[in-house]
């Protein structure tokens, strides 16, 4: 039983990371119907910004994560302005290929700048270095941190999307861009805003991963990015609650396959689930099937 609870907690930690990244995928898809593959690279950038903030500027965790979120936000908006906006009326496949190109550009550009070797975050001190025993479980402060930061960010996101004018604009654009435009909504700035929020969440996830796993490299975004994408599709791409649900679900699948099955099949099972979902429920778990909005 203790082991089971521990595995639950493990899956929540990893699931939080997937959920944070998946949110960026799903929001961007919701608004411009683009699978933004560069998103995983922004997550990697976040991890590096946090690393440099902590090691070279000696900043603490909170300023580092805020700085990473801010810079990722700017990078996300720039990516959209430079690479995607000129293609807004082009074929979808052209934008998709561009997204892959941007992703490769950032990852290998980063490899050129910071070298391919693995870097490790400075050791955490104070509260973040502690771990607690609850019954048979051992919970580290860093796991609590991941959960807490994820919950805070999701609550903030929910408030922004549901209650603010910009949030309303986002929802309107995602439902029908042309109609929204006719109603006087500034579509361009709404899209920029969506990229800004998504990228900030990815940046936060990057720093959390850096702190938790203590190991970052320029290609660290590839696999988590893919899995977060699977999570977004699983929950129903374009839907914010779907991304969160999908993130935690993928986290749980990974942990329980490794913990009770065979660790060799972990990634295979995750992608098998993607295929199954696409066959059985193409719109995702929470998605409404049958209606393709154009």
């Amino acid at each position, binding site marked *: 039983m203790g082991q089971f609870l521990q595995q639950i907690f493990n899956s929540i930690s990893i699931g939080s990371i997937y959920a944070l990244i998946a949110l960026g995928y799903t929001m961007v898809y919701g608004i411009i119907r683009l699978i933004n593959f560069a998103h995983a690279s922004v997550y990697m950038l976040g991890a590096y910004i946090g690393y440099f903030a902590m090691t070279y500027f000696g900043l603490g965790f909170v300023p580092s994560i805020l700085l990473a979120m801010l810079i990722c936000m700017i990078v996300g908006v720039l990516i959209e302005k430079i690479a995607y906006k000129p293609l807004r009326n082009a074929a979808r496949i052209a934008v998709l290929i561009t997204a892959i190109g941007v992703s490769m550009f950032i990852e290998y550009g980063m490899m050129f700048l910071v070298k391919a070797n*693995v870097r490790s975050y400075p050791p955490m001190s104070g509260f973040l270095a502690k771990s607690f*025993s609850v019954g048979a479980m051992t919970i580290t402060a860093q796991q609590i941190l991941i959960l807490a930061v994820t919950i805070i960010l999701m609550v903030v996101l929910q408030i922004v999307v549901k209650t603010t004018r910009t949030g309303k604009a986002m929802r309107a654009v995602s439902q029908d861009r042309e109609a929204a435009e006719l109603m006087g909504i500034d579509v361009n700035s709404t899209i920029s805003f969506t990229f800004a929020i998504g990228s900030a969440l990815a940046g936060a996830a990057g720093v959390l991963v850096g702190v938790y796993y203590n*190991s970052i490299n320029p290609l660290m975004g590839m696999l988590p990015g893919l899995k977060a994408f699977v999570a977004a599709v699983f929950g129903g791409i374009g839907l914010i609650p779907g991304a969160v649900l999908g993130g935690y679900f993928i986290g749980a699948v990974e*942990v329980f396959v490794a913990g009770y099955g065979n660790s060799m099949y972990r*990634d295979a099972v995750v992608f098998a689930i993607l295929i199954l979902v696409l066959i059985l429920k193409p719109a995702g778990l929470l998605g409404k099937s049958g209606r393709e909005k154009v």
Partner: protein
Amino acid sequence: MKKYLSVLLVLVLMTAALAGCSNAPSQPAASGDDAEEIKIGINYELSGGVATYGQANLEGIELAVEQINAAGGINGKKITLVTYDNKSDHAEATTLANRMMTQDGVLAAIGPATSGAFKATIPVAEKNQIPVVSGSATADDVTVDAQGLKEYAFRICFSDSYQGTAMADFALNTLNAKKAVIIMDSSSDYGKGLAKNFKEQFEKNGGTVVAEEAYVAKDTEFNAILTKVKGAEFDVIFIPGYYEEAGLIIKQARAQGIDAPVLGADGFDSPVLLELAGAEALNDVYFSNHYSSLDQDPLVLKFIEDFKAKYDKEPDAFNALGYDAMNFVADAVARAEKLDGTSIKDALASTENFAGVTGSFSIDENHNPVKSIVVIGLKNGVQDTISRTGE
């Protein structure tokens, strides 16, 4: 007049250019008994993915050459190195081996550092009858494979499977362990070979492997595996893999409160292990290696002193292996009947009790060294204890 001058100039230029073309092949680099110097080819990964291995090997080699030449060379002849960078690329390593053997006229070649690249140069060596020596190619099938012995290939490091066996002995005899857990890197031959040999030896001598888990390179999340493992009863964890993941596994294991001794092999040997795992987690961690700077052998002490004087840093295992590889070749060249590839090959094969800083060894019939292994114990992330086992 001007016209004649320009024609003349063109003619002069053409002759010069043609002469340039024909020069290289018509003058095969001097080798053999009448050569004034002994040319040794260096074919290492000086850039690219595993550049640190190649660079470290080369530092050791250059130190050895400096010392040999300062002492008057080999039978009065100085050693010159023909150094090439194979960019951590197997095809490039083959091309360079060909070039140094057919054009530069080397008598023997050292490198590359990794097993795959080294194996790629062996067919070239066999064809040209020039011996190749690696200081660090540890894969099991480097010098002997299904087709038999590679006559011109030698290495001076023990094989991966030998490390697995030695660590099983260490667990059983030194740590008195009865039950082991293996968490293996299933994406490399290195990890799989080590795991297999550890398990065989451990179970043959009364131990039980209670759980076997696997991961692939670049994984960062091991909590699920570790939580599962934590539920089992065991005395040691064996992690056949490289420092990038091993560091994280150790960190996450210690954070979960698993404080059993952790064993590994030479893949642990990197300062990055300490950065990833943190000093607190690196207690009761043991790994096999070729060399330790804690060794009190006078030969090793002198090597460390000389190395520090030249490079202003502590030598690591790859520095030591490079140093030994060069001295091993020099020793054979000195004993060879004639200065040609075949005689040097015979001399290398008959090496007995060569005293190196990575331990003294003789070459067996498979062109592998028979040598002892060093097991290094870490305390708060620094090397604290060493023991030599096996022979």
